[in-house]
């Protein structure tokens, strides 16, 4: 007989909240890249203005975790889950901040003529969002192997970042007038690279919830 049904229900609800936060952060990244691709300044502003909602959601999750720790004295896997939720909440909120950063760059770019057609940056964003979505699946399904696999995929994001860096450097060397525009795109790519790193941190927490071991998996080269 389960004797802490209420506690476990509350813990379950917190996990749902993490999914909601993850979805908000993922959507923010997606929107910021859409805004870049389509020069949609209105959408970029929406991402910037929406960031505080993401922050609030994270605080709400933290508060619920603190309440459970204070009132329920969680143990073992429940304790690891709550501690991990606190960490994952921070990671997701930071991913939201990267979307905010990208959106600010979009506004800076404004209506400047495009430097080049955007190919690798949207690809990087898609990959990052895909990793994020699957990391949260692994979190909910307690899938340790899944978490490890996703983490390993960070290399492909790093490779895209390398590629973008080289390409933009070539533009800048060939024509110094492109330096400002190229640097802005570098910032976008950098934000995405960091967001993918945050996903690997989430994966590490998933592994910790399940195995109880803190291990660094798929350390990013950046």
């Amino acid at each position: 007989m389960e004797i802490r049904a209420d506690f476990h229900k509350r813990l379950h609800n917190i996990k749902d909240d993490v999914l909601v936060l993850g979805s908000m952060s993922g959507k923010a990244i997606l929107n910021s890249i859409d805004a870049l691709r389509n020069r949609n300044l209105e959408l970029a502003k929406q991402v910037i203005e929406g960031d505080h909602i993401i922050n609030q959601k994270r605080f709400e999750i933290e508060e619920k975790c603190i309440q459970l720790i204070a009132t329920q004295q969680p143990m073992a896997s429940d304790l690891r889950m709550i501690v991990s939720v606190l960490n994952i909440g921070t990671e997701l909120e930071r991913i939201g901040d990267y979307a905010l950063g990208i959106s600010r760059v979009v506004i800076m770019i404004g209506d400047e003529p495009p430097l080049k057609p955007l190919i690798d940056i949207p690809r990087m964003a898609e990959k990052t969002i895909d990793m994020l979505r699957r990391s949260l699946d692994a979190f909910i399904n307690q899938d340790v192997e899944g978490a490890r696999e996703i983490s390993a995929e960070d290399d492909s994001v790093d490779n895209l970042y390398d590629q973008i860096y080289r390409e933009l450097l070539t533009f800048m060397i060939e024509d110094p007038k492109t330096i400002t525009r190229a640097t802005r795109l570098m910032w976008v790519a950098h934000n995405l690279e960091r967001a993918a790193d945050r996903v690997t941190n989430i994966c590490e927490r998933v592994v910790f919830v399940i195995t109880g071991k803190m291990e660094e998996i798929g350390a990013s080269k950046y």
Partner: protein
Amino acid sequence: MEVTLNKNIESLPYLDNVKLRTRMANLYYNKFQALRNVTLEIPSHAITAIIGPSGCGKSSLLRLFNRMNDLIPNTRVTGDIELDGKNIYEKSIDVVDLRKRVGMVFQKPNPFPMSIYDNIVFGPKQHGRTNRNELNKIVENVLRKSALWDEVKDKLEQSALALSGGQQQRLCIARVLAVEPEVILMDEPCSALDPVATLKIEDLMRTLREIYTIVIVTHNMQQAARVSDMAAFMMMAGDRAGELVEYGHTSQIFTNPRDKRTEDYITGRFG
């Protein structure tokens, strides 16, 4: 008799300062088996908590260590139970001397109906100490150790029964300390106390562990997590009581138990 190897033998934590040890210990009350092949090592100068649901054999295990179970008729013990490497169930063992070395504190404070002073000197007097100055020193010393001195130093001749529950329990601990034990067994020492008195006893335990070896049985898992260095989880399955499921460092047992049954118990997934 059914003999099954206790799988915990393989996974016992490494300890280099073992004070108490059981090897394949079995305890029977008539035909009822209260402990099953219990093997564990309890380190000195540490607090070891025994946790588990009611009837799982926690108190039975605790009472092995000072042969309190001997007082129950038709009790039979098999296996080794050692104090400092010596089997305490050997015929040559003087049980009175054993219980002096291995003191016990019970669930309900049980001061004798006499003065605070006399409660404490009762044990030493039984063991032949009569010098008043020496007894005075013992009283002050153990009352200080049990964090009660400041509260009772001006009323040592008053009845112990007039003290609060928490004070009475600390007096009982002082009374145990007065006979200079090496091990203190505590059987639910705080279950009759209010939260503040409970925390005082827990603080006291943390201080006493520097000098003594403490084994505590508690139903309160948070208490076990707060005070103990080592934790043993026992359980009963169906009509089988007295199985030691997992034993390890408290930090491991309460954050990452190895056995699913421990996990389920301490997270409240079964009671």
